[in-house]
């Protein structure tokens, strides 16, 4: 029964579909701000623009998955902060960008790497920061 459970997980790319689902998430990874807000930014949008501002300041994840997949995050789970924008607990990962943290979460949830080449160095740093040697080796192998 456990074997079929694991086969089913692999077939569906693990649990990657659960990432960034605020309705089931119980913890967020707080990301580096998407751009330097210290600089004045003027944005001009045409009348027909459908530009949307995505909330790329946090990645919604699940404590159980983090606990199971990443030993160094177990420590973080024992001293959580609070997300200033919600009632959820938060882990400070503001050294890393939103895109890299989504890819880091994707690896934890699926055991697969889907990062694009320009991000490999930052992903490798992220793997080192969170002590995930397999992800680090994966990123090194893919990035060269």
């Amino acid at each position, binding site marked *: 029964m456990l074997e079929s459970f694991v086969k089913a997980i692999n077939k569906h790319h693990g649990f990657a579909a659960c990432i960034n689902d605020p309705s089931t998430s*119980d913890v967020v990874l707080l990301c580096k701000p998407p751009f330097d807000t210290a600089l004045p930014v003027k944005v001009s949008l045409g009348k027909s623009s459908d530009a949307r501002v995505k909330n790329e300041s946090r990645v919604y994840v699940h404590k*159980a998955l983090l606990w199971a997949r990443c030993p160094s995050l177990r420590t973080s789970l024992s001293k959580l902060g609070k997300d200033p924008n919600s009632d959820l607990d938060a882990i400070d990962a503001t050294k890393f960008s939103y895109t890299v943290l989504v890819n880091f979460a994707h690896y934890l949830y699926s055991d697969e790497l889907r990062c694009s080449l320009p991000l490999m160095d930052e992903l490798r740093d992220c793997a080192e920061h969170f002590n995930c040697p397999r992800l680090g080796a994966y990123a090194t*192998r893919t990035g060269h």
Partner: protein
Amino acid sequence: MLGKNVTLPESTFKSDLLQLINNQLFSDVKFTLNGSAGPELIYAHKFILMYRSEFFRAMFMPTAALHK
């Protein structure tokens, strides 16, 4: 070319996830089984059940199941 020679440590995905089965830590739902030796509890996680089973998706989030 150096990266091609990097040895990938063996995956722990399977054993990592198996730790979650019947693990009370961070569990948010439990099954109660009525066995001959009395009630038995099995601890689980709603988000895993929801993403793996239409049945549980409908149970925990009826509106989402309708839209799917």
